[in-house]
């Protein structure tokens, strides 16, 4: 038996104390691990929010939004300048149009209904889009979006229904295509009995169906996506753009880039960003992140103190034994090693219990943190956005019809998922061993101070 195995055996010398110590350590490690997992989950979510939601800037012709308002279209030259702005990674450009029955043989799969008739009555005089409304019967126009980013529905979400682009069949055309091809939403394709390779007429031109997609909502599935240049050519709107989305490399640069684009485009465009929404989401998540970080630090400190105090107590109890071992020739290093092995053993047993509990408890604890943060964050985001022009526009624009920003914020925060992976467990174990070594290092100091003559002390 050497100093190492003596240390391991000593850890179990007093069964009652070992049990109590291991349970307390286990709880501490369990809390630390849960907080580590929660912290990582929230950090991951913050990164996701920052990278995928918050780095966009919406650009519209001044006064125009979707098919309402007025003003003059933007030009490709203007958006070329936007794409050159520092920190802009790409620009998705769209030219949207509504094809009437005289411009296409496609029929919209959506019936007018009460809402359609009510809307048509109010806008019927504007350009005859709603054709023969006077006779109380009309067909809805078919929306076509010409775009250089066909799979990114957010690029033309002002005319579409949003959702996620899923290609059901066929292929997606290239971003710079000028071919007479189209992607059809699944509903309009079905309504018109079209499949990949079929043709239809638009702007007196035969268009081939390149693919069929779905978006998860009926409005989106009733639309047509075509190459930007094709729509510009067929509609006689060469180089004209009705909306664009600029993508920024980091959420932290969105405000700066928005200001730069506004300066570049001047009064010709309305430039808005999602930073207010992002800030609401990130702010709420950062609260959870802070709580979990402080709890993690607290649990680690508590664990370290438990080990530290335990080892000091053990050393004090065994002063005589340490004196004996020194008296018969052991070095301080060997005795310190034995006590470190004992501390590591106790901590590892505690860690096994703690990690087991931590893995089980991490998800409920994360959800609890998220839930407690959710109500306050929703109310704070509500108030913070109340006076925010661009953020308010964004919210109304993207989440109309009951899916407002508050719902989105709440959803984003609620969708934090704690994931327990192997690396976290390894990190937990390494941290536990580190705590044990730190805790026993102080004990080592006391061991070094014990004189061998202690053995001569009469009890």
């Amino acid at each position, binding site marked *: *038996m*050497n*100093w190492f195995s*003596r240390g391991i*055996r*000593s850890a179990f*010398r007093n069964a009652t104390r070992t049990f109590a110590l291991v349970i307390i350590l286990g709880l501490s490690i369990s809390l630390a691990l849960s907080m580590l997992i929660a912290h990582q989950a929230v950090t991951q979510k913050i990164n996701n929010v920052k990278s995928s939601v918050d780095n966009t800037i919406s650009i519209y012709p001044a006064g125009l939004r979707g098919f309402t308002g007025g003003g003059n279209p933007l030009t490709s030259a203007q958006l070329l300048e936007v794409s050159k702005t520092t920190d802009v990674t790409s620009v998705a450009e769209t030219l949207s149009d509504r094809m009437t029955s005289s411009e296409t043989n496609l029929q919209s799969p959506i019936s007018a209904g009460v809402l359609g008739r009510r809307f048509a009555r109010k806008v019927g005089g504007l350009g005859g889009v709603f054709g023969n409304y006077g006779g109380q019967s009309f067909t809805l126009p078919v929306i076509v979006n010409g775009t250089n980013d066909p799979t990114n529905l957010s690029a033309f979400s002002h005319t579409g229904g949003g959702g996620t682009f899923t290609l059901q069949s066929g292929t997606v055309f290239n971003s710079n295509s000028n071919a007479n091809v189209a992607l059809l939403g699944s509903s309009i394709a079905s309504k018109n009995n079209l499949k990949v390779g079929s043709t239809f007429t638009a702007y007196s031109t035969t268009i081939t169906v390149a693919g069929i997609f779905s978006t998860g909502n009926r409005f989106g599935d009733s639309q047509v996506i075509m190459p930007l240049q094709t729509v510009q050519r067929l509609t006689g709107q060469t180089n004209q753009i009705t909306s664009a989305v600029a993508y920024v490399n980091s959420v932290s640069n969105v405000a700066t880039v928005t200001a730069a684009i506004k300066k570049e485009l001047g009064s010709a465009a309305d430039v808005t960003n999602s930073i207010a929404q992002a800030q609401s989401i990130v702010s709420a998540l950062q609260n959870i992140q802070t709580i979990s970080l402080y709890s993690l630090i607290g649990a680690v400190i508590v664990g370290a103190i438990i080990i530290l105090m335990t080892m000091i107590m053990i050393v004090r109890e065994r002063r*005589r*034994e340490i004196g*004996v*071992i*020194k*008296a*018969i*020739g*052991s*070095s*301080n290093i*060997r005795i310190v090693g034995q006590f470190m092995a004992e501390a590591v053993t106790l901590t590892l047993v505690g860690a096994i219990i703690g990690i087991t509990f931590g893995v089980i408890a991490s998800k409920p604890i994360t959800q609890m943190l998220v839930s407690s943060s959710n109500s306050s964050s929703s109310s704070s985001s509500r108030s913070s956005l109340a006076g925010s022009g661009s953020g308010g526009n964004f919210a109304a624009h993207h989440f109309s019809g009951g899916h407002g920003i508050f719902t989105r914020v709440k959803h984003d925060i609620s969708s934090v998922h704690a994931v327990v992976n192997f690396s976290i467990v390894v990190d937990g174990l390494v941290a536990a061993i580190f705590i044990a070594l730190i805790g026993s290092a102080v004990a080592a100091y006391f061991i070094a101070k014990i*004189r*061998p*003559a202690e*053995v*001569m002390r*009469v*009890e």
Partner: protein
Amino acid sequence: MLKVTDLKRQFQSGDTIVNAVNGIDLTIPDGQFVSIIGQSGSGKTSLLSLLGALDKPSSGSIEVDGRDITKMNGGELNQYRAKTIGFVFQSYNLVPNLTALENVMLPMEFLGKPKRDRIERAKNLLHEVGLNDGEVLRKPGSLSGGQQQRVAIARALANHPKYILADEPTGNLDSQTGKKIFNLLHDLSLKEKTTIIVVTHDLAIAGKTNKSFRIKDGRVVNSTDRSKT
């Protein structure tokens, strides 16, 4: 040979300085069985601690085979305690969670002896001091006082030390067991050719040693050499 010259050890006790060892000079030839006697508080245990390098003297020197142990560094003192000295204490001082065998093996580990050699030597010693195969695997708590002291003697002899320092080795034992332990210590020291320095109150034990030093107030006040008689 062990030679002590003007050895002093002072302790601070409150505002007063206690001279536990106050200028001791003595010489102990190799192979002797020596006793140090004196009343409680006379300084005999302090002297033993200094001889065993368990404590540092305030002044003076302790030469072991011409080498002054008071000038040794920590590592050298560890080696000295492990290799040259074997301790036998009044209260046995065995490590409670180790078996008798493991207790005896312990000093040999500090000198880096192979495990097989340690086990063999420890078993032989334990058998020599009178423990059977079952008892060598028991922990000190389940052994009697006499058996524990036998284990302590075996541990003291483990590294073939030149000196065995015994502090009241029979103090916690009844007279019959004490006599057996003393005889055992005596016989083994002869067999192992070890010098024994024993601190004792018991004049009967002291009377059986080759030489006695009587200590009073930290000084040697009398020495009796029986080897010449």
